[in-house]
Every structure is written in C-alpha cells, then in structure tokens.
C-alpha cells in the first residue's frame, strides 16, 4: 500500500524534514502533516506543520481528523551528545510509546507505521558477528543509556506490531549517517584535522549517505515492508581507510586502556566523543543490508562513495561558508504563503495560483451550489489543506465540467 495521507513525527529533524520534502514531490500523496515541538529546519512546500510534541491524545485527534493512513516516526535521538540522557530517554522511549498509542485502536485509520531506529540496537562488542542481520540480538545487554533506550523503543514497537496485526509495521535500523548537511558526532569527528582513534585498533565502519536516509524512509512509505530492515551503504571500510579517503592522518590519541577517561579529557579540547561511539572506535560494526536490497531498494551511494562525497564537501566547506543563509521558519510567512488569496506565481501555494478565469469559474460553481452561499471564496475552500488547492489546480478541467453540471442542476 502506498502512503496517501502521511503524518511525520519529528518533522523538525533533518530526517523528517527531508522526508517531507521528498513526499511533497509525489502527487499521489494527498496530505502531509508534520508534527514536532520545534520549528521545521528546512523549507516545506505543502506540508502542514503542527506544533505538538508526543502527547498521544493530541496526536490521536490529528490522526483521526486527517484520516492519516501512514505514520512515519523520525524522532529518535541517536547521538547522546545532542541531548541529555533524561531528555533522550523521554524522547526515545516515552515518545515512541505515545506515538504508537496514537496510531493504535480499533477504529484507527492508520494502516502503516514506519519507525526510524538505529544500529545502536546491536551495540558494538568484542564477540559481535562481522555483519549483523535483522534477526540477531546483541550478545550482551546494552552498555550505554542511549543503546538501552533504542532497545526499549524497539521492544515497544514489537509489542505494538503483535497487538495490531492489521497495521504494517516497518522498523528501519540505520547505520551512522554522513553527508554535507548532517551534523552528528561522526561528522564532527571526521571534520577534525586528524581522525582520532584508539591506539591499536582499526575498527570496521559503515556509513549511509544522507540522501539514502530519506530514500529508505520514502521507499518504506511507498511499499509494504513488514518487519525489520537494516539500512546501511554497501561496503565496510576500516577507519584507516576512511581517514585516507578524507586525506587526513589517523591520530591514535586514545589509549586502549582508560579510554573513557581520555575521552573525558578530550572534552577540554572541545572534542566530544559519546560513549556509544567509543565502543565503535574499538570494535567497529557493520550491518547486512541485503534484506532491504531484496525488498527493492537501491542505495544511491556505497560507504566509500559516502565518505568521498563527505570529503569533497569538507574541502570546499571553508569557501562555501556564509553562502546562502540557513532556512528560518516563520509561522506568519508560511501561513500567508499557504492561505492568502493575494499570493500568486511560483511562490504562492494557495488560491492565488489560480488564473482569473479559473477563479471566475470556481465562483460560478459555488454560486450554483444549493444551500447557503459561502460568504467569501478564499479561506474555507483551501482550508482543507494545501493539498486541496493542488487538487483544484490539477483538476481544473473536470471542475469546470462539474460546474456545468451544477449549473444544469440548479437551472430549472
């Protein structure tokens, strides 16, 4: 089943924003609603933004009112540097439980739930297999708070899937992502003049390109993929190989014993290495991505190509600095652009896009409708959503036909 009416939670994250942009291009998606407690961080065209956290009662009302058939949960925090442990737990575990609660229920319109998870589910340990497949469990209980949260969140999703057999539940476990627009602990680490490593270890590393991040989410939204899927680029690099692709030396500054203490000391140098990353720097991790490939997804970039693209970006980063100011969400501007009849041309999203003739035709059709006349043409007709205006634009010939019918019916 392809998604038609989509709710994206965490639309303010990089992942959610890029997914919304990708879905906007697809005309078969009628409605896209993005929720997040924070402002969107990328420019959205016809996505409706609602400022709401993970309060399940509110989400439930949105889901039912908008007849959402697909929920994509992109909120998961996968980097313990970005949020304090308590906030991360609140978001990752309690948040997931709440979002799932909003999707469930006997009369729920939701048919598909897609959850962004992380390879931190598997952890990184000495006796790991070289490639994790989806049915493998981690050999030891989680070591860090973040990994514990990811495992707990997945447990909740699993329980939800068994309770709701009618809903397709997709869990996507993403490897570490890399790309020009992403800011993670890994992009920070690889952006240093030398790549820090643990003395005596050359871990295996796998990355997924930022374009594949939303590519995979979009693929899951379009197709029916029940179960768990690993999402990681083809190929596994040694950290030394990553450093040489970046044209940087490998700096074994962390001792093999007392690594945590040394990493703590490095914070004084403004280098923050989160505990889950220390494990990876020691033992590395790789995922088997073949299940997702068998489900029809084609990765745009291999791990090596991802690192190369990142290296290219690093070289021109300094020169690009200051070029093009970042996007800033302004509620009033977005609403004006969406709803004002005064907006025309390419910038316009609402009724302003219609030509004078089309507007006149529409007015005639509305005149001809039985019942009380609407006071004004603009806001209510478009109020059903920005997508409503799109259907009006694309469907203008048939709507004129409809107007003719209405005229005939109203005539006698």
């Amino acid at each position, binding site marked *: 089943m392809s998604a038609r009416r989509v709710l994206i939670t965490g639309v303010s994250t990089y992942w959610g924003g890029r997914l919304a942009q990708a879905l906007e291009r697809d005309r078969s998606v009628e409605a896209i609603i993005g929720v997040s407690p924070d402002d969107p961080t990328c420019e959205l065209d016809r996505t409706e933004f609602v400022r709401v956290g993970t309060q399940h009662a509110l989400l439930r009302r949105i889901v039912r009112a908008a007849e959402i058939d697909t929920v994509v949960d992109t909120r998961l925090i996968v980097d313990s540097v970005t949020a304090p442990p308590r906030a991360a737990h609140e978001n990752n575990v309690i948040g997931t439980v709440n979002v799932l609660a909003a999707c469930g229920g006997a009369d729920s319109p939701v048919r598909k739930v897609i959850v962004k998870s992380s390879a931190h589910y598997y952890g990184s340990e*000495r006796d790991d297999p070289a490639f994790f497949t989806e049915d493998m469990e981690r050999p030891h209980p989680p070591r860090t708070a973040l990994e514990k949260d990811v495992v707990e969140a997945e447990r909740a999703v699993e329980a939800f899937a068994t309770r709701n057999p009618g809903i397709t539940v997709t869990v996507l476990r993403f490897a570490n992502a890399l790309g020009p627009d992403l800011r993670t602990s890994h992009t920070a680490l690889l952006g240093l003049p030398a790549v820090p490593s643990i003395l005596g*270890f050359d871990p295996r590393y796998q990355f997924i390109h930022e374009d594949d991040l939303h590519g995979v989410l979009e693929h899951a939204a379009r197709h029916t993929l029940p179960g768990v899927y690993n999402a990681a680029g083809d190929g596994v690099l040694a950290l030394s190989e990553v450093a040489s692709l970046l044209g940087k030396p490998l700096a074994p500054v962390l001792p093999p014993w007392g690594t945590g203490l040394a990493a703590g000391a490095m914070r004084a140098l403004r280098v923050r290495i989160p505990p889950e990353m220390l494990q990876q720097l020691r033992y*590395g991790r790789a995922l088997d991505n073949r299940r997702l490939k068998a489900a029809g997804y084609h990765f745009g970039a291999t791990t090596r190509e991802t690192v190369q693209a990142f290296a290219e970006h690093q070289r021109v980063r300094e020169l690009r600095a200051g070029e093009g100011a970042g996007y800033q969400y302004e509620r009033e501007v977005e609403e004006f652009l969406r709803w004002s009849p005064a907006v025309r041309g390419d910038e316009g999203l609402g009724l302003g896009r219609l030509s004078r003739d089309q507007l006149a035709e529409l007015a005639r059709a509305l005149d001809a409708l039985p019942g009380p006349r609407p006071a004004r043409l603009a806001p209510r007709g478009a109020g059903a959503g920005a997508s409503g205006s799109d259907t009006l634009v694309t469907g203008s010939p048939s709507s004129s036909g409809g107007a003719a019918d209405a005229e005939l019916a109203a005539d006698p």
Partner: protein
Amino acid sequence: MSARAALPAPAPSDDPRHHLPAIEPDRRISDWGRSERIEGLVDRTLVEFLYHYWFRCEVEGIEHVPPTGGALLVANHGGALPPDASMIAKAIKEEHSRPRPLHLTVEHFFKGYPFLSMFVTKIGGVPAHPANVHRLLHDEQQLVLVFPEGAKGTEKLFKDRYKLRRFGRGGFVEAAARAGVPIVPVAVVGAEEAMPTIAQVGLLKRLTGLIYFPITPLFPHLGLLGAAYLPAKFRIRFLPPVRTDRLAGEALDDRGLLQEIADEIRGRIQDEVLDIIGDRRSVWLG
C-alpha cells in the same frame, strides 16, 4: 489511482547471494577488514621465508581443495603461537592450480586486544562466529579454515603433542552442512615442535589477560626472541573432502549425528598425523 500506488514490495530475488555488495576495484581492504597490502607485506617478509626455508613445508593432496565454491578446511592445532594456519594458507597459494585466499577463523579474544586485533584482521583472520562462517562459506563461496580444538589445542603441553583434543561439539560440521559445502580435513605435523609448550602458568595468564601463558624453550626468558620458531620440518596433508549434503533438514538438529561425524573426522586426522610421524626419521630434517 496512480501507477505508483499499491505496489507490493518488489522482490527481484530472495537469494541473499544476489545482493552481496559489488566489488570496488580501487579498494585494497575487503569488507572483512583484510588488507591486501599488509597481507602481501607479511607474506613477502616472513611467511615466504618460513614456508620455504625454515619449515621447508611439504604438501600432499592439494588437489583435495576444491578450485571453486566454498569449503571448510579442518585441521589439528598445536604449539604455543601456532604457525600452522599461515602455512596452510601459503600451501594453497603456492601449490594449488587455482590459488585462493583462505580465511582463518580466530578467537573473539583477538578482537579485544590492541594491535593484535588490527594485525589478525588485516592478514585474513575472521572472528569465529557462526554467522561469519556461514556468510563466507555459503554466500561468498570462500575457503575457511577452522581449528575445532581451539585453545585446547594450543595450550596442550609438549608431552601431549599430536594427541588431538575434543573437536568441539560438532559445530563445524553443522556450519558446513548449513552452508552446503564439503569439509576438507587437514593433517599438519611440525607445528608442535616449532614452538613447544613446556608449561602453562595460570597466574600469569590471569595477570596478562591472555588466553594462555605458555613457557616454551625460548619464552619468556628470552623476551621477544621467544616468538622465534624452532626449525621443525613441516608436513601438510590435505585429505579427501567429506561431503555434507546428505545432512539436511532434521539431521541438522541431531546433535548426536553431528558429534559422530565430527569424531569421525577427528579420527581421520589423528590417523594421518600418526602416519606422517611414523614415516619421518627426524623432527628437524623430516
């Protein structure tokens, strides 16, 4: 409804082998972490010398190693820091009509130890995880070498030399059968004299965190020189492959049957080892 709507998940193929990552020709390190460069360097500087001049390896039955497809090589294991794995790998490289890389399964212990972890991975060591062995044998159709005796083989003392220990619990038979590949038993003589273990020190083992702490003729009193091998003559005999395709379905869950086959293979290797020892006149000259 648009053409895109309601597509079922397209399934080009369910065989995981068709979805292995393509080979990137610019790379000199494999996805397993094996480095062509380091492996070549060690081969030229050390293995070449040991194989030809120090141990003067003599190889029989190399034709039993299949030229294509996966195969599980099973050998006896001995000596404090056993050179047998690299000698078997070198034998296939030198003598086989179609030289192929050999993947050595190693204890997980190595992955946790600084420097060793890097080195072992780069020269072709793969942690002995069943999933790793299966991927190599079944999906990638590679040669894999296992020592079912494991650490029990390397920690045995000189007086117990060439007495094969228990062959695990038949795990290697199961691995080969699940992958549908033959087992090639290998008998190696010489490794146990190259670096004999005179005693084991439990206390030092615990203190150093090593898997065992051996006393050899040269270690630990000669320090780093203790890593030197004595020039024992090596003989490697590859035995006819044991097919595992008769094992399928329920037979795979029959631990008793797997154990039986493992014991049978152990017996064959033990017989061949004794046969080679019976033939040789000198430990050093062969």
